[in-house]
């Protein structure tokens, strides 16, 4: 099959950007979209052009590196699929596909389709952990955890931190990402100990980074490659209200 790829090209954050169209000829329906990009890059390198920069690593939908908006939808229109797992069999032969980077103020562009997602790391650093040191942990079976709680925690913990939720949201809100971690940890007895501080600190970090607010449009869950649902956001809202009422503080008393 044959595809035209309209790709956002931008040398650096400060340089002006534009769309350029590349022809992917003789591609196979069994190829992933990123493999088609690999092919375009091979041609570009051979002909002395500048290959397209894009993030990608594991290519099996779990590392969360790939981040392309495909025809207006982060990771493309296939449900529960990352861009690296999106195969060309889902496109029409001869189609023109528009590829854009994640667009959000907290995700500044680095080059072409590559953006900087450090804001996510900073949110986790603010409180997305259980404060235990290595060693001295009690037996893993010391506290039984209801299977339903673990399953629900796992539903949230599968987040791969790709940022598609931010890219899809009309407000560039990071609520689904933050709520996934808050939900995961608040559903487990190990994480409950510091639940108030965690949610206050993570929300503050989220707001400080400049992400927008949630207006419950559901775009985030529609594009989440791990099918995380917005009920995690409701849980976080509940946790946050609880923390406020209990007079919690986001500060870490050292």
């Amino acid at each position, binding site marked *: 099959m044959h595809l035209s790829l309209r790709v956002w090209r931008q040398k650096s954050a400060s340089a002006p950007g534009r769309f350029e169209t590349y022809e992917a000829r003789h591609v196979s329906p069994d190829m992933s979209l990123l493999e088609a990009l690999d092919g375009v890059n091979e041609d570009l390198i051979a002909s002395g052009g500048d290959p397209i920069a894009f993030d990608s690593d594991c290519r099996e939908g779990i590392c969360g590196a790939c981040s392309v*908006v495909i025809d207006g939808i982060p990771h493309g229109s296939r449900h529960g699929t990352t861009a690296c797992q999106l195969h060309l069999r889902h496109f029409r032969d001869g189609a023109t596909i528009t590829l854009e980077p994640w667009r959000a103020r907290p995700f500044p562009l680095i080059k072409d389709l590559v953006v900087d997602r450090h804001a996510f790391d900073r949110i986790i650093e603010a409180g997305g952990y259980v404060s235990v040191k290595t060693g001295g942990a009690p037996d893993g079976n010391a506290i039984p955890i209801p299977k339903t709680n673990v399953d629900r925690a796992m539903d949230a913990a599968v987040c791969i931190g790709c940022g598609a939720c931010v890219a899809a949201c009309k*407000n560039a*809100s990071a609520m689904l990402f933050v709520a996934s971690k808050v939900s995961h940890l608040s559903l487990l007895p190990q994480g409950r100990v510091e639940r108030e501080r965690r949610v206050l600190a993570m929300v503050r970090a989220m*707001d400080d980074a400049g992400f927008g607010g949630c207006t419950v449009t559901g775009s985030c869950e529609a594009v989440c490659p791990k099918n995380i649902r917005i009920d995690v956001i409701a849980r976080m809202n509940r946790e946050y209200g609880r923390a*406020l009422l209990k007079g919690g503080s986001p500060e870490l008393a050292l």
Partner: protein
Amino acid sequence: MKLLPQLFHSSLGKKYIMAITGLGMLAFAAVHLAGNLRLFLGPEVLNSYAHGLHRAEESLWMIRVCLLVLIGLHVSMAVVLTHENRAARPILYERSRLPGASHASRTMIWSGLMVAVFVAYHLLHHSAKAQVSLTGHDFAAFRTTLADGTACHDVFRMVVAGFSQPVVSGFYIVGVGLLSHHLSHGIEAAFQSLGLRNRAWDAAVRRLASGAAWLLFVGYASIPVAVLCGYGREALQ
């Protein structure tokens, strides 16, 4: 950490305010509708209800002030949040699809602002009784006497006179339609923002939201529709 500053500073806090003020106004809209529907019980019931309300002038003012505070908070938070949300995406996509987002959820700020304009007009229309020019009636001059002999303002006649004009009725129906559209997303979002939602209750909350929005629409719209169909015309004779 202080509760109030936290509420007004964080995006989640602002959403709590949106949700609580929104639900407050929803409660008002429901009570207001219950009052309006007395129209169907005849002029005597409606007029004595209206007269009763006006006699309790102090409580009425309290309700008005509360309502103004709710509206003020709701609108100002909406404007602030919209501004912040826009700032979070300075460069737009060339192709923007907003997957999964309902029309109502994408246009809350616009439906909300239009409802605000409608409410302002509506207050002028009925409460301030300033509809002389459009209908040719002087609403303030509509007086009647209740069964117990009390003289009072003839609200029944005013309503019928107003809604007999198709333009007025049409505008009103569009207005409550926008309100319901706003609420169809707003109620669900309020539950979400307050965290009053989980997987087990998800479907119920959705049904409640759309059911309530439809109920309000049908309830409010039934009055102009009934008047246009001829209900209460005899009051104008």
